[in-house]
């Protein structure tokens, strides 16, 4: 079972290492991890995706709560939510035909070409993980030179907030 867990954390030195350490220490997986300070600089917002059975996910959430720096933990996958991941892809783009085909694919996926050289494009794409996978698949013939993914960020839909 894939889960997206969102954590509000004191923006203290060592806080992130405690979260990450917890996962390795207790044998849980982190599939993706994304962290940055919030608009309140004393807080960090961390989103991680993990897989595990129900019992494991319940333990993960309780163990995360137990960390002293943790203020709130929520399992976004419990309810309707929006998840996005940012991807930057560098591809070889040589010749008019290939370049136009790539541009088409980028348009279809509602991405942007953010850097251009005579022989390459750098494409920016945002969406959920499946969309990003589909894009990579779509341009497989061209072949990617480098792919960078940010890991998932997520937020609950509607009137639910994760605040102090």
């Amino acid at each position, binding site marked *: 079972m894939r889960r997206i867990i969102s954590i509000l954390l004191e923006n203290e*030195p*060592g806080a992130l290492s405690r979260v990450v350490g917890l996962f390795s220490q207790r044998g849980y997986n982190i599939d993706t991890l994304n962290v940055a300070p919030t608009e309140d600089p004393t807080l960090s917002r961390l989103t991680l995706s993990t897989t595990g059975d129900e019992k494991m996910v319940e333990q993960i959430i309780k163990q995360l709560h*137990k960390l*002293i*720096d943790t203020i709130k933990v929520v399992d976004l996958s419990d309810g309707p939510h929006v998840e996005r991941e940012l991807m930057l892809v560098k591809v070889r783009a040589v010749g008019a035909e290939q370049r136009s085909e790539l541009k088409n694919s980028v348009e279809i996926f509602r991405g942007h070409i953010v850097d251009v050289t005579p022989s390459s494009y750098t494409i920016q794409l945002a969406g959920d993980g499946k969309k990003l996978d589909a894009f990579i698949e779509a341009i497989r013939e061209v072949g990617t030179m480098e792919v960078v993914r940010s890991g998932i960020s997520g937020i609950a839909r509607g009137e639910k907030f994760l605040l102090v």
Partner: protein
Amino acid sequence: MENLSGGDIVIRALRDAGVEYVWGYPGGSALHIYDAIFRQDDVKHLLVRHEQAAVHAADGFARATGKVGTVLVTSGPGATNAITGIATAYMDSIPLVVISGQVPSSKIGEDAFQETDMVGVSRPIVKHSFLIKRPEDIAATIAKAYYIASTGRPGPVVVDIPKDMTDPAIKVPYSYPKQVSMRSYQPNERGHSGQIKRALKTLLAAKQPVIYAGGGVIIDNASELLTTLARKLNYPITNTLMGLGAYPGSDRQFIGMLGMHGTYEANQAMHHADVIFAVGARFDDRVTNATDKFCPNATIIHIDIDPTCISKTVGADIPIVGSCKTVLGDMLELLDALPAPDGEALNRWWATIDDWRARHGIYTADRFEPSGGTLIKPQDVIKMLHKVTGGDAFVTSDVGQHQMFAAQYYLFDKPRRWINSGGLGTMGFGLPAAMGAQLAFPDATVACVTGEGSIQMNIQELSTCTQHGLPVKIINLNNSALGMVRQWQDMQYSARYASSVYEDSLPDFVALTEAYGHVGMRVTEFDQLESKMRECFALKDRVVFMDIVVDRAEHVYPMQIAGNAMNEMWLSKTERT
């Protein structure tokens, strides 16, 4: 507001946190703090001979008193030597504050002399840790450290202090916070009232109930409440290794310790129970045996302050997150208005338990051959210790067979009298822990039950006992072998004693003890045991080391058979359930 140096602030903050004693060992990065200790009288420092012992001693002090233990070590090896002690306290939820010196801020990360990332190294074995970044933060951080260590589920907290933070030339205003409040840490003590009512209903409807109480009851000073509740219900009660003394061990309702080396009756009762009332216990693997075969018919009620303990290994049917004290208090208030349990069913249950007791109970049946001549059974040494000390000593132990014999045969009637490393199983714990208990209760009898293996892991502390006048009594069950290892090798490795024997290289413990200025005794005949032990405990002001030669072939029984249900046990070398 008074201006003080960081070093003085550390010690002033300890004083204001109510700390009387600090166990530790000086070194470069901690010297400003040590100088601050030297210039005042409120906080007393006890010098040990190895930092591991400092932590165990503070831990023993904490377990005996319920107060927070305090440790001060230097950076690098001082800090890493403390690690085993910190892990020991963490596993058993013991409140400690460990202050470690660190290299100056400007040197951190440069692989400086005696630099170790203490916050990093200790991360998985602390409740929390802090690295001080400004001298102005020291007092508030120390206040937080004591607050975190002692509230909720207690545990060790590390405060790592770079040397420049305690520089005597830099003075900053000192103020110790009157109250600590943290938005990210608000432990909840009160149990959910609906769950408490559900739990009581289930508990009172039980026909074959068992109360299974652990170390949480002792930590939370809830023994009296638990005892009152158990007596009102007339339910059988078992204690975990960490919970011994939570309910009087010599009482009829006490059915002994449970688990790997638990009594036959306790493990049988658990297995056949219809309701298990778990209080401050964590369904540890040394209790449950195979979790998929654990207590197949039981509805499980589980009180614990730590939500992660609930349904971690065994699912709880009625979980209650809260402190043992408040939840048991709430239960007792509601109890009298509720219908009493089914007396007839309970009588039948007690008859079954009494039958188990009579057949294979370690207290009522002859579980081991009698001592006599040069044959001294380790169990008899513990029984003698109980007799000679009137069952009222603080008993610390190391880890191995002697620990299990002490747990089984010294029937603890009071909480905080049994002090052992249950979770981590740290050999070398017993002697320094005994020093901690003796410091807290100078007039009390403190006995360290140990083996010739464990005692040598921290034997240097005999010197600490001399320096600080800590007259602990050491009961060394000497079988010239790492007994528990040897037992497993007997049972699982066809008696191939890989590195568990060392008879030709053991020291003369009597001479060794005397070299430290203490009294040594060697006992090789069973009929000398009582008189020698009486002589030992009559020497109130002296450290006495009793080196008692016990039966090397003895095993600890009962012993659960791994991978099975709780009630599958070896009862002797040849007899199983």
